[in-house]
Structure formats: C-alpha cells, structure tokens
C-alpha cells in the first residue's frame, strides 16, 4: 500500500498533519505501539524539515509485510554537507522557526535513532529525499 501526503512550506500551523495521518493508518492496520511511536517521531521530524527548510514537499507512506517506509521528498535547496546536517546541534533554521522552538538541530539525529535505516539523497539546488525504513516484527 502506498499513500501520499502533500506538505505545505512555511505553514507551521498545519505542520504535523501528515505524520498524524500516518499514525492513524498504522494504528488501523494494527502495528505495534512501539513501532508506531518510532515512525511518528521520525516522520514528524522529516515533515517539519519539509516545512522549515524545503518550502514544502511530499510525505509518502509505504506498507509492506515486513517493513514500514516513510519518504520525505522535496524540491528545496538541498543539503550541501549531509554529515554536518546529521550532527546534533547543527541548524540553519530561520529566526522565526527558532522562536517557535524549532532549530535545535536534533531532527535528523531523532530520525536516525528511530529508523532501522535512513537514506538521504540530496542535490544542492534540486532537492532532497529522505527515506526512513522501519522493520516490523512480523517477518
């Protein structure tokens, strides 16, 4: 099963809705609570990065028999130095975003910790695709 959720850029008030929908779907299919929690945290961080850093994009949820996959895709500015972006504390968030409590530079670290596998495909000026994979216990 594949579901797509558009995410608007700079729209802080609606931010989190895609992750919330993903949570509801995982609940409906009866995924384990701990897995749902990990997916939710990672999906939320990926979604917020679309909002804050990429001018919006799309969240994609794929459900397989032994895997949940969440993909955050954008046509934003790309990430020039992925290693640096992965470091906890590094952030290029705007002053407005920081005032709202974003920009701790912890999002990518949270994603990495929660996912079984995290892939970042990015090109400066073209966009970024973050793929988050979660092995489910059913295999």
């Amino acid at each position, binding site marked *: 099963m594949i579901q797509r959720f558009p995410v608007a850029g700079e729209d802080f008030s609606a*931010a989190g*809705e895609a992750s*919330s929908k993903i*949570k509801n779907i995982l609940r409906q299919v009866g995924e384990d609570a701990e897995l749902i*929690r990990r997916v939710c945290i990672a999906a*939320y961080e990926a979604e*917020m990065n679309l909002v804050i850093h990429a001018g919006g994009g799309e969240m994609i949820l794929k459900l397989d028999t032994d895997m949940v996959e969440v993909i955050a895709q954008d046509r934003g500015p790309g990430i020039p130095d992925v290693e640096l972006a992965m470091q906890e504390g590094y952030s290029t968030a705007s002053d407005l975003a920081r005032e709202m409590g*974003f920009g701790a530079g*912890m999002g990518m*670290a949270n994603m990495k910790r929660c996912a079984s596998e995290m892939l970042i495909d990015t090109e400066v000026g073209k966009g970024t695709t973050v793929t988050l994979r979660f092995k489910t216990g059913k295999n």
Partner: protein
Amino acid sequence: MKLSELVTGIEAVAVCGEQGLAEKEVAGAYVSDLLSDVMGRAKEGEVWLTIQTHPNVVAVAVLLNLAAIIFTAGHEPEEQTKAKAEEEGIILLKTALSTYETAGRIYQLLTGAGRA
C-alpha cells in the same frame, strides 16, 4: 497519579479537556521549549512543561501520546492551539507558577521526595 491530583498541586487550571483530568494517569514530566528535544526525549504518558504556545505543540503531544501540555509562568496558549487541542483531544493546562516551581512540585508529587 491522576492528572486531577497533579493539577491541584501545581495550582493549574484546565484550558482544554477538563473532563479528562480524573481519568488520565501521569507517568512523569518533561521540560523543554525545543520541539525536537521533546520529540526525542519525552515519553508516552508524561506531562510537558513549556512556554511555547503555538499550535504545533499539540501535534507533538498527539504524536507522543503525552498526558497533557502545561503552560507555565502565566503563558496563555494561542486560540488556534486551543482549537487544535479540542479537535485532537489533548489536555491543556496553565499555571502562573514558574517552570522551576511547577517542575519541582511535580517531582515531589510523583516521587514523594522531600516529604517528612
């Protein structure tokens, strides 16, 4: 401990979800105004002390299954935040006590520390 007992102890009032106070169990607390920090460290069933009042705090509470958000030091949630909390069934509390005082009292209530 039930949320209703905690509310009394920290001199809080419910802004949203008052009907759920007597039922809701509190597992602990987390204090932070950085959303990714909360996302990474707060646990299910905890109350979250913050002075961030915008609607996105509700999204965090929903995704983490937090027991409630507590706005400290007299901070008042935005109208949109209240509307979203109503919609999502998240309990919002506010107190005039400082974050320090609120956290200290919660710690005492939950652990029994400092009692004679």
